[in-house]
């Protein structure tokens, strides 16, 4: 499969996503600079983590205007798989492909650590190989991952099973203690109505080789690779 990893000025997990896809999973991968207008023959688009444009104004606020985003939108609207990880998720929300916004973490500190993440739904291209309720231990690394959306949007997300990942304790309980940033309903990741666009704050691409501390993120990539064949 062909993965396009979009690079914004300030992206810094672009190489990690590329490494995972290309060297760990043996897929073909291309960096796509944000000023380009075509995604080439991509089958999957990854918006990686980082601090696009420094995130000085608001996370993802400026990246959404990049020329490539029109193609990303068209790609998403055609039902093809798009994943936004961390800053990529924030960009997807800023450009309206996913609902909600991120607030500062409730303790206003940046958190980099492994957290428990529960798979809530297995019917997206990025969770097809997982089972509902499966627990992943994967890293987060963000200062603004405190997911917020108005109550009616949250209700809609829950009603339509669009919460895909939730912070949970090691034994799968959704508790406040397991919530690293204050996200509403412990939401760690969601999808769009078409279920092909997924955004999440945790970094599955950082957890694909045991030597780095966890390989639990593999299921996200294995799912989309399986989805494509």
């Amino acid at each position, binding site marked *: 499969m062909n993965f396009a990893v979009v690079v914004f*000025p300030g992206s*810094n997990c672009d190489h990690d996503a590329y490494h995972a896809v290309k060297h760990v999973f043996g897929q073909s991968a291309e960096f796509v*600079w944000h000023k380009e207008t075509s995604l080439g023959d991509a089958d999957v688009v990854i918006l990686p983590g980082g601090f696009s444009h420094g995130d000085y104004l608001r996370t993802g606020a400026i990246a959404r205007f990049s020329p490539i985003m029109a193609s990303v939108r068209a790609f998403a609207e055609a039902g093809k798989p798009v994943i936004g990880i961390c800053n990529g998720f924030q960009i997807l929300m800023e450009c309206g492909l996913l609902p909600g916004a991120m607030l500062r973490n409730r303790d206003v500190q*940046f958190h*980099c650590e492994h957290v428990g993440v529960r798979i809530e739904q297995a019917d997206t291209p990025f969770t097809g190989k997982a089972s509902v309720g499966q627990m992943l231990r994967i890293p987060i690394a963000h200062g603004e991952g405190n997911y917020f959306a108005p109550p009616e949007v949250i209700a809609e997300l829950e009603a339509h099973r669009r919460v895909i990942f939730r912070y949970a304790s090691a034994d799968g309980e959704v508790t406040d203690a397991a919530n690293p940033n204050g996200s509403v309903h412990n939401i760690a990741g969601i999808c769009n109505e078409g279920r092909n666009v997924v955004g999440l704050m945790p970094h599955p691409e*950082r957890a*694909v080789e045991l030597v780095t501390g966890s390989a639990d993120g593999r299921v996200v990539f294995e799912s989309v690779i399986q989805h494509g064949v």
Partner: protein
Amino acid sequence: MVFDSATLQRHGVTPDEYARIVELVGREPNLLELGLFSVMWSEHCSYKSSRVHLKTLPTEGARVVQGPGENAGAVDIGDGLAAVFKIESHNHPSFIEPYQGAATGVGGIIRDIFTMGARPIALLDSLRFGPVEDPANRRVVRGVVAGIGGYGNSMGIPTIGGEVMFDETYSGNPLVNVFCLGIARHDALVKGQASGVGNPVYYVGAKTGRDGIHGATMASAEFDETSADKRPAVQVGDPFMEKLLLEACLEVMQTDACVGVQDMGAAGLTCATSETGSRGEVGVEIDVMHVPQREAGMTPYEIMLSESQERMLLIVHKGREAEVERIFEKWDLHAVRIGEVTADKMLRIRDHGTLVAEVPNRALTDEGPVYRRPFAPPADMAARQRMPSVDATQLPVTLDALLRLLASPGIASKRWIYRQFDHMVRTNTIVLTGLGAGVVRVKGTNRALAMSLDGNGRFCQLDPRQGARLAVAESARNVACAGAEPIGATNCLNFGNPERPEIMWQFAEAVAGIGEACVALGTPITGGNVSLYNETAGAPILPTPVIGVVGVLEDASHVRSRVFQDAGLDIVLLGENHGELGGSAYLTTFLGTISGVPPALNLAAEGALQRFLVAEAGLGAITSAHDCSDGGFVVALAECCFDSGGIGADVDVPAASGDGEVGMAAATLFGESATRVILGVKPEASTALLERARSAGVAAQRVGATGGTQIRVAIDGVVAIECPVSEAEDRWTNGFSQWLESPPQRRG
């Protein structure tokens, strides 16, 4: 003389130095020229007080690819690759404005690394603060930690480790030392050198503002009151700009269009132009009118002396300009041509064509003053080294004592700090921060690099030479514990006012100690940094040399952390316990004093121990390794249990013969004898391992086994301390944040 003494004083130039300037220039300098000399001859840039001592450091070795003198040092790590690394201090700015001071410190050291053509892959930080009972210190801690994270995280360079200590003397003088390591191919290392007469000189990055123009170099003739107001004391970091610069510069350097590159750090454009010219034995001529300026009406003096962040100077092969400009444009950066390389070894500065300064490059960079400042040991040295007379009740060996030590700020887990640092980005970190030395794999090879920063101001206060030797040994030992062979070192020397003989003595002794240990342990010094005048109202900081050691692990899969991997392992102690409490964390915690003689260090035994740890890496017997440092054996043992999921340990150690009867138990358990490592060893392999240790000349004994839920420590068969792992781990994990968040106390 055309300048009055006040002007010279403001420039920090002594009458003797001025006379020398006149001699070197061949005439009276003008004000701009005086400014150039004042910054280049400042202590910070010229190392005028420290140079004679630094010269004695060992800088050569088979692995050294680049020793001191360039923007950073480099050592060979195999496969044609070099590890490029250096440490920098940003102490004073971090006191003035903790967040921005620390952030711009990170930015500065990162530039030093990518200037060499290396991709930065890891950061470490070494911090010293005053006690955080005082809200003022708390503000510094919070700001510095957030600032390091704010810059490093945005850059996508993991901060994979560091160290922090607290002492009253750092209250007005916090230390922020930051280390960065990058990777480059040997043949692609870029030097900070100009060459090729007629080659264009480019400026790229942030615009030049009035920031950072050194207080000591203000010149009355050009500054009225209002312009002084315009000059901010603090620089604001722009990690986004730096990220663009990093990517663009590395892309430019992949072409061979560049002759040399230099970042603009201290002394800004002055340093970058004169140093590149001087290293390349050429001249450099620029016109300041081309320099991008953030504010209107800047004078050549201000432009040349500005220390605005995130700026680079490039010397480009004539004819390749378009290629270079195109790459910068891609990253939304505009490289501007500000001048060219000339043949006559002069630094020539023009303003709209008019010549405004003309001085020989080498006069600025190499012919500055060198001082052999007098030194003498402090008068109270003997008193410092005397152990306080105490009775046994003042030296508790109880469960409570252990818990208190584990929760003390110097020893408690630093998770509150490193959780604010992205320590996993780039997916190379293979020993997570907090679990040992920082270790990153090198993608595309089997190897990994381990690195550690260490320094112990307490030991140095009691004996600077010994303290420095111990710091080198500890840093290298941490790297060897991970399985890596120590191959190179860098150092950041933080001291008080060198014009005072006792400070100069501390400095000279520490440098001598570093030299001795680096020679013995095979870790040449490839670079470093000196930070002097760290004192408030005549009260200096503890002498604080911070050592960074880098090691290579041939097979990354052999890496070890400090954590016991399983129950039922043999616990083996390498090294000997001499029961030395002098300068220990234990004494400071329970007696509130820094006193005694620091632990002895046998460098031959230390070397043997480290070589043994490295040789064992591939053999599989050792599953974890942790050195005994602050808090001694029991604290180290407890740390081996932490993060293991609650695995306990049951050990029995012989009493140490050390500091007499009183406090024997405390000395045995909490003394900080060097050259000791606790191993978790597969039981079926431990007899053979002990045998191998013996033949390697390394003292080794099986002292117990892992398992159960308790940490139980006996001395000669009598249980001294018993504590549930969970309770100990809880105190250790939360000690730091509880302390930081406890109700503030105003002191004094």
